[in-house]
């Protein structure tokens, strides 16, 4: 079957074992690689026909002190979806840009830079604003940023005569 052939091929080429490869559902595979190997692996996938870059996203694992970058790629001919994860340290978040492989990655990486503070080398627009304007706090999607405190302090809310219980709190 095409999916097993694909898994056997990448295990052989990149020395990954079954701890790094998970089959999430039919035709969907999740692979974990080291951050040093990530660029080589992604270029290899583009050459074997994974032409669509669906999404680049980042997850802030604050307890384990690292960021996780996830690249989701789709191949139409093989009908497979692969999510490639790699981990980078939270204290110095840097990664190589892939925009020369998939041109639309320019805006996905700019987006992650604005909301998480991860720097992609080889990208011309690091540090410039895209969605936010005049933002001078820490990157907003990090786990140690509290949006409610920021909102109530900067944008005053309407005063009402009665007390509101459980305002803005998830019910425990």
């Amino acid at each position, binding site marked *: 079957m095409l999916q097993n052939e694909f898994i056997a091929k990448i295990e052989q080429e990149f020395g990954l074992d079954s701890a790094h490869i998970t089959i*999430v*559902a039919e*035709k*969907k595979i*999740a692979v974990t690689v080291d951050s040093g190997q990530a660029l080589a692996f992604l270029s290899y996938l583009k050459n074997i026909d994974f*032409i*669509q*870059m*669906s*999404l680049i*996203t980042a*997850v*802030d694992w604050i307890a384990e002190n690292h960021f996780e970058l*996830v690249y*989701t790629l789709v191949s*139409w001919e093989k*009908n497979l*979806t692969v*999510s490639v994860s790699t981990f980078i340290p939270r204290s110095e978040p840097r990664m190589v840009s892939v925009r020369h492989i*998939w*041109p*639309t990655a*320019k*805006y*996905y990486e700019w987006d992650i830079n604005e*909301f998480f503070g991860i720097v992609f080398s080889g990208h011309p627009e690091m540090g410039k*604003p*895209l*969605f*936010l*304007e005049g933002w001078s706090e820490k990157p*907003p*999607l990090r786990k140690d*940023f509290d*949006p*409610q405190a920021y909102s109530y302090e900067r944008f005053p809310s309407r005063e009402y005569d009665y007390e509101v219980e459980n305002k*803005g709190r*998830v*019910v*425990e």
Partner: protein
Amino acid sequence: MKEVKLFHGPNHPGMHGNFSVHLTVDGDTVVSARPNPGMLHRGFEKLMERRSWIQNIALIPRICVPEPDINEAVYSMGVEALAGMEIPERAKYIRVIVLEIARIMIHLMSVGGIGGPTGLYTAPNWGIADRDLFLDIFEKLTGHRIYHMYIVPGGVRQDIPADLLKEIEEKLDNLEKRLVEYRELIFDHPIIHKRLKGTAPLPKELALAWGITGIGIRSNGFDYDIRKYDPYLVYDKLSFDVPVCDESDAYSRLMLKFREIPQSMRIIRQAIADMPAGKVRIKLPGNALKWKVPKGAVYSRLESSRGEYGYYMVSDGGLTPYRVHVRGASYPQGLYGVEAGLPGTRLEDVAVWLDTMGVCAPEFDR
């Protein structure tokens, strides 16, 4: 000639939504363009982390304003995949009916909406009025015209009564007669031919390089549709065609949207005929407000009217989602496409380009 800098700004009669493009123009031709998104930014991804799994259903239809049901469907499919739940068959058929009615409604609004950039003001009046008749069905079914909050993890909120199904079939019959008039008004009109044929072309290499899905790639000969390639819900049991054409310009893309409406009507009629009886919702374990979803990460997606719409969801076993990333369907063409594809068009065709490529600002601004 000198180059002039213009703002095709947020408040423009031909612009759908609050999105602005900074253009540099030489005479009448665009030399360079830069998108300026962020005016509709609400910080959804942060807000979703602060509400429990069930409370998010009230929040997320607002991410994509013209077609809100896809948000609820993708979120529910993702949560059900993480929690390992299997929903009843009748609920799947009802979800398919709701999603296809939403697709018909947004295609009517887009086909009618060509009147904004081109000046044919009869078309939006018809399109929006016909769409309104379907909003009446949603109001009877769910209680709200626009934001339904109907598709929840576990199924759908309540059952659909039999006379409402009959009313849907009657409205589809009426719409079929109206589609002939749309074709005569818009697609056989000589001024629309002159205005739209040859404008805003999208060559095949650019569409593949940008990773566009949906109408942009189907108008170039590829028949990539997630309902056929990676079927979700009950699409593998229903028979329908996916319209494709060879050359991509503004006229052919609009024609493809128009040709998808009869296919959606076919799907709805089959779903109404084949729907089994049974329950429509399974009960969540324990107290729904204190439900904890098991650990894991999943990327769930479906085919919206503009392309592949997906959510990447991560759960760490808590009361709230740990991370949700919304992949808007028009992210490639709204941001990178504007920078790489607009130079070379004429100034009066910028609005036509943005309209027929399917740029919907709230879904990439989030």
